[in-house]
Structures are given as C-alpha cells and as structure tokens.
C-alpha cells in the first residue's frame, strides 16, 4: 500500500461506518468497505478485514443491527442497518467531530493567519 494513505485514528472508522449506513441504508461488509474507499477517494488506509471488528463493536452497542440476506447478485451475505439509537449516536458523534476538526483547523492555521484569532496575535509578532 502506498505510504501516502491516511492511517485511521481510533474511533474514526466507527463513525465512517455509521455515516455510510445512515446514508445508504442496509449494506454488507464488503459494500461498506468499498463505499468508504470510494468516498474517501482511496485516501484511507483500510485493511478491509478490520471493518468486521468495527461492525461487531457497533452492533454490541446497539447502534446497528444485522441479519443474513441475499444480495443483488444473489449471494448470501450479512447485511447491516443503522438503528434509531445509532442515528442519534451518529448525530452526536458527527457534531463532536466537526467541532474537533474546526478547532484543529484553527489551531493548526495559527501561524499563517494570526489576525483570525484576536488576542493571540501578540505572541507571534
């Protein structure tokens, strides 16, 4: 795998899975993994197999539910769907994530645009 791909932070994979399921409805493990790869523009370093640990974790928390079914091309597969509790959790987590990334952006942008942060300007002058 190319070294330029992103290593996933702890917990981010769970959030991506929730987002995928909330946007796409019920999906099987391969579908979820492919979807994440496609949406991220193949930027994410993902061993597809590790998605199953994330799925079992989410299911044990009651945020997704699973059942065996038959796919479009007539193969048996285990399908996962987000639950009501999962949707609520997703809302909370994505809000938290947005706030975190916003703060990270601002903090990391500090050196270049000090005037964006009143009161912090003196230190870099």
């Amino acid at each position: 795998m190319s070294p330029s791909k992103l290593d996933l932070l702890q917990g981010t994979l769970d959030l991506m899975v929730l987002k995928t399921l909330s946007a796409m409805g019920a999906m099987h493990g391969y579908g979820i993994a492919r979807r994440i790869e496609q949406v991220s523009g193949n930027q994410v370093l993902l061993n597809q197999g590790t998605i199953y640990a994330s799925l079992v974790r989410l299911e044990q928390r009651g945020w997704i539910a699973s059942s065996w079914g038959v796919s479009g091309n007539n193969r048996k597969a285990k399908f996962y769907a987000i639950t009501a509790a999962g949707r609520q959790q997703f809302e909370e987590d994505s809000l938290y994530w947005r706030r975190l990334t916003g703060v990270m952006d601002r903090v990391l942008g500090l050196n270049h645009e000090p005037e964006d942060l009143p009161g912090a300007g003196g230190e870099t002058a």
Partner: protein
Amino acid sequence: MMRRGLARVSAFFGKSRRDAELEREFAAHLDFAIEENLARGLSPMEARREALVKIGGLQQAREKHREARGLMKLDILLHDLRYTFRTLGRDPGFTIAAVLILALGIGANVAVFSVVNTLLLRPLPFPNAHELVWIAPPPTKCGLSCATYSTDAYDEFRTGSRSYQDVTGYFAFSSPDNLTLTRNGELIPATSIDVIANFFQVLGVHPAMGRLLAPRDGIDGAPPVIVLSDAWWRRQFNADPKIVGKTLDINHQTVTVIGVLPPSFDFGAVFAPGTKVDAITPLTLYGPPRDWGNIITMIGRMKPGVSLPQAQQDAVAVAPRMCWNNKNPQTCGQYKDGVVPVQLKDYVSGRLHRSLILLWCAVGMILLIACVNLSNLLLARAMARTKEYAMRAALGAGRMRIVGQLLTESLVLSFMGAVAGLGLAWMLLYWLAHQGSVALPLLNTLRIDGAALGWTVLVAVAAAVFFGLAPGLRTAAGNLQESLKDSGAGSGLGRRHERLRSVLVIAEVALASVLLVSAGLLLRSFLRVLDVDLGFEPARAAAINALYDDNVPGDKNGDLGAQKRGVIFQQMIARVESIPGVQAAGVSDYLPFGGNRSWGLPLPKGIKAPKGLDGPLVYVISPGYLRAVGTSIRGRDITWDDGPHSQNVVIINQSYARFIAGLAKWPSGDAVGHVLDDGSPGGLLVVGIAGDVHEENTESNTGWQIYYPATQSNPTGAQLVIRTSLPPATLANSVLTALRSLNPKQPASEFRPLTTYVDRANSPRRFFMLMVASFAGLGLLLAAIGIYGVISYTVTRQTQEIGIRMALGATMGRVQRQVLGSTLRLAIIGIALGAVVSLAAAKLISSLLFATSPWDGVTYAAVALALLAVAVVAGYLPARRASRIDPMLALRAN
C-alpha cells in the same frame, strides 16, 4: 455500557459459532471483491490476488474481531491456566513438593489466624460484647477471695452505680463435681456454677430450649431449678428433646430442668478455661450466702454510650460506700481502690496477647521461608525453561505476557497449596477445639470462618506474588538471543541465577535460626517452669471429691458437726490407707492449683494490722493431708485430738511465719508456739510451719497460707488426697469402693492425679512452646530442603568442571570438602545474620520467658550447632554425588 458488557460475556461463550459466522462473512466478502475485480476485466488469478490484498491480514482481522466482541483478557487467562496445568502435570515431583511446602506454610498461617481471630480480634461471643466489663480489684496475692465481693457489696454496687445497665456475677468457689445426679440408681458426679439470676440477661445469652434463669429462681426458698449445658444435655441425657420440665434427683433433692443452653455458650470456655461446667444453677443471693463473705465475681454491662473510663470513675465513686457486711459498719470502705472495671475480653484473653502475637509472627516467618524455598524451586525450573521462554519471546510473546504466564503458574500453585493448607488448618483446629484440658479461653469456638477463608485467599495471593515475581522478572529480563544460544549450564545468566538462589538460602537459614532461637528460649523457660519447687509433690498423688454428711440435728454452734466430721474423716482416711499401695491420705477442702479463698489476717495479739495487706489463703485440712500432698512441716501436724473443745491450732506457711515473726519481733524469729489473734477467746496456736506452696500456678511467687483443722473449722468440702507408690489410676476403683463402703451416696467422681492440675496451669505455656517449636522444626526442615536444593543444583551444573578437576588429579575427599565448604559458607552467613536478628527478636519476647535470659548463650549455641549439623547433612548428599562423578562420563556428557 452494560449492554455491551453482557454481549461480550455471551460472545465469550459462543466462541466457535461466532468464529464460523465471521469466516462466512469473510468468504462472502472475498466473493464480492473477486466478482467486482472480474467485472473490471482482471484475470481470475489476478482478481483473487487483489481481493486478498485488499482484505488484509485475515488472522489479524480475526484477532481484532475477537478482541472487539469478547473478553480477550479472560481468554488469555484461560489459556494460561490450561498451559499451567499441562506443565505442572508434566512435572509431578516439583508440583507435589511445591504444593506441600505451600500447604504447610499456608495451613499454619490459617490455623494461627483462626486462633488469633477467636481470642484476640473477634469480640466475645455475646451481643454488644464491648459493653461487658469484668469488675475486680487489681491483681493481688490472695487469689480469688480478693477478686470477689460480698453480697452486700454487690448490692451496693449494683444499686449505687449509674454507668451500668445491670450488674451480675457468679459464685466463685464452686469445686469440680459439686453435684451428684442420681439416675436409675447410678450416682453421677457433675459440676455446676451458681450464678446470680440476671446472669444470662446481662450477657445476652438466649436458651436453646426452655428458659434461662429468672429473678424468682434466685429467691431464698424458691423451687430448685437447673439449666443444662449443651454438652451435658447431649452426653448425659442423649439430647432428650423433652428434657425441659422434667425433674432430676440432684444432691438428693428434686430439681426441675428449666432450659438448655445454646452450644455457643460454654461457661468454662469464657470464665474458667480448661474446666468443664455441666450446668448452671441460681445463686440464692438473699439466703445463707449472705454471710459467707467475698464470694461473688462481678460482671457488668455498661449502658450504651458509656465509656470504660466513665465506668471506672463511677466505680471509684461507689467503692467507698460498699461494705463487706452492712451489719458491721467498720467493714464499709474496705473495697476502696478495689473496684476496677476492665473489658471482659481483656480479662478473658488479654494476658495471651503477647503470646498470640509471637505465634502470629512465627507462622509469618514460616510462610516467608516457604516462599523463599519456592522461589528457589521456581528459579531452578526457570533455568531449565529459559529456552522455552526465549522461544516464546522470539515468536512474539510480549514480556508482560511471559511474566503473566509465570504469575499464573505461581497463583495456581499457591491456590492448590491453599486448598491443601485449609485441610491441614481444619484438622489442626478440630484437634485444638477438642483439647478440653488446655487452659486457653474460647478454644471450643475455634473454626474456619469467613474471616479465615478471606485470610487464606489473601495469604495465597501474597505468597504467589512474593515467590513468583522474582523468578518471573528474572526470566523475562533474560537476554533472548543469549538464551537461545546458551547451553544453559555455566553461562552468565546461570551464574546470576545462582547468586540469587544463594541469597535466598541465606535468608532462609537466617529466618529459621530466628525461629529456632525463639523456640529454644521458650523451651528453656518451659523446662525451668517444670523444675520449679511447687511446695508439694504432684507426682504419684491423686485426689477425689469425697462426699460426707456431717449434719447433726440440734447442733447449735457446729461443735457436734465438727466431731462427727472428725470421725467420718478419720474412718475415711483409715479405710483408704489400708488399700495396698497407698502411702498416705488426707483431706483438704481446697487443693493447690484448685480454688482458694481467704478469711482475714490473724496476727499476734496486740499488733495492729498494717494497712492494705491481704489475708493468707485458707485451707481446712485433716491430719495427714500435708504429708499426703507432699508439703514439708516443721513443728507438728494437726492431730485428731485438736477438736472443737481443745485449743484452736493452725499451721502457717514459711512466708507468713517470717512476716509475723518480723512484725512481732520475736527473739527466736520462730512463730511455732505463739498465739495469733483471730477474735476468738483462745486465739490460734501455731503448731507447725509448712513449706510455701504454689497456690494457683507455677510462675507467680507464693503468697501466705494458713491451715485450719477440719475438726475446728468448717470446710467447704473434702478433697481426699492419696499418695501412692503405684500409678494413681490403678487405685481409682479401690478408693471409690472404700469411700462407698462408708457413704453409699458417694458418686463416681473423677480420681484426678494432682499432676493434671499442674499440667492444666502450665498448659498455655506448653501450648505456645509446642506451637513455636513445631514451627521452628518446620522452618528447619524447609531450610534444609533449600540448602539441599541449591547445593545439589550447583553440583549438577558443575559436573563438567568437577570432572575436569578430578581428571587433573583432585581426590574424592577434596571435591567433597569443597562442596561441603560452600554449603557451610552459606549456612554460616545465614546463622550469623539470624543471630543478629534473634538478639532483637528475643528482647521482644523477653516478657514471655520464665527465668531465662533472652541472651541465653546455651540456646544460641545449640541453635547454631543444630543449623550447622543440618547444613552438613543437607550438603553431604550432593557432595557425595560430586565426589562419585566419573571424569570420563562427565567430560563426554556435554
């Protein structure tokens, strides 16, 4: 969180099903990927390869899945456990040795903990036991008489004090076998204690059946009632469930059984250790005992919230108002400074405090030695398994994982040892609880309870960490590559291990020597105690409680009774002395090491009693008693002619004689022939001086004693003492037959060798000495095993080196000497270290020693020699083996 936890636990159990489901998901995943890749136009081979690359390491994904869904830690633990049992099973010799060592160490600890817990830590077996106090003066030399109160004094204290919910007491002078139960024509002796009717209310004891005493039972003239002890009810009455309400013929009176005590209450176990009390009877406080003087021991229950100092203050305030006899005003105030409440528990077991702590320390040391020994065994094993661990580390096991595995092994061993140890402790406690003759309180309540189980777990875990951690860290810290290359023997790692093992052996020897010194000092003390001149000779003498009836109708002043008594005693003694083998016989109402009492302080006429002196202990005896019991007399013995109408005579003991001779400044310094004033017209003529007799125990100093003739004073009973040339037990039947021929009502009372009284008094010391000595023996054995293990291992490791040296001309003797030399070096360092620690430890136990210096040279020398001898024996076997090494075989071996 809760939900996830449950899911994980359930996932832990459905492991194979879940693994199978995951595999199906993986298969489906690959199928989807391959299909998509084929659709993208890849060749089937290429499509499959890419799918496998994308899914990543399957094994890693499986592990992550298991970790996320189940209990990984528990999985590891179970795995470690399985592995541990496999490895231990492969090496049964090691396992058995380790479990046995631990079982001894842990078992001893649990047993002693139970003893300490019962006697020291746990409250007495009464509700709110902290409120109970024992009320007595500070210890004096006049025995029980000075620790008791008159009924008037009791009444005054009970009504006058304000700190107590209630105050009770019991009659302190009951002698053993004071009851005769007549059942189906058989006369059965039994022992009862008279208690004040509120006794059980104050203690908070409830009946197992029927009722206990009520105030009406203690009224003079009340119908006689009796409460049976659980043990007597079972033994004598076959646990008759309908016993309550039945009547018994006791002392030829009809007595109603009103209740049975619960098994948890044993009067003897709390108040008179080492004696058996079969029944409780009410003390008629306002009947004849009114004028018997000091007869009641007092026990109070403080009001809730009252502290001991407050209760003591209260007692100080009441004491001056208490009178020995209310009709006799000058006896008021004589209890001043003599009414001091102490916690009942302190009275019962307080003086055992130090001994118990010593015992606890001793078993702690045993456990340390056992742990050190086990550390040693494990280190030897770890050496042999270095490669195994290196291999595991090479295969990716983390250091913590290896230490964890080793700790699991230690814990498994420790818990196996704990289970076996609990068994040992149970046996030991069962044996102890049935030692009726050991005068230690509460022994009958000894058992393994929840606290003891908790202690077992604590000790087992602590031991496992202690003996497992050092070898574990050592092993885990070893250099991986070096170990894999290393052949094991002779390497640097090996030497480091060996140094640690030597240090452990030295520690073991040092600990064992501290234990041995303590045990040795206690043993010397015990031998000194046995050597004490008691003032009488218990060997070859025995006593039986003889019943007699000296009632004479119309006997106004007791003279007729005294005459009748004289005749009965004279006949009794003559009859018993005619039995072959009986050398002497005589009667006394109290025996040395039995009960005692005092009557006052008779002094020469005209001499005022110095303040604060207690009277001599009183014994009412027949002629021949002093000879029978083995006490020397100067002057003359009492004779049958010293009757109610002749001059009152007494024999006094040496200390008392010396005291009054000094007080009266008699020129001859001898009391014989002088008259003492006891308030009677003629006074008491001293006719003889008896040797000082130890009255209660071997270890305290003797006090003053005075002997009155049974034909001039009224004894409280008759203990017939017989001196014989035969083993006393062989005479039991003929003595009983002789007594019955005179008095058909004589019950089959126990014929007790006087040594049993002395043994009972010495039993706590013997008990602690034996315990510490057996622990020391155990320590010595463990140290010997430790020495043997290390030296033996060293010899094995140096086989090659020894072979070379022998090939170069070293003799067998030289090799042996060398091995023995290194053994002795370890032993000597250990002994020296132990001696230093012992000096400090001995100082701490000095209060437990009797006529023995804590720096007793003989003990130290003997211990050092014993340890050296053991070291030589333990080192000799490996040394012999070393000297038999065949150089050719040894050199070829590696």
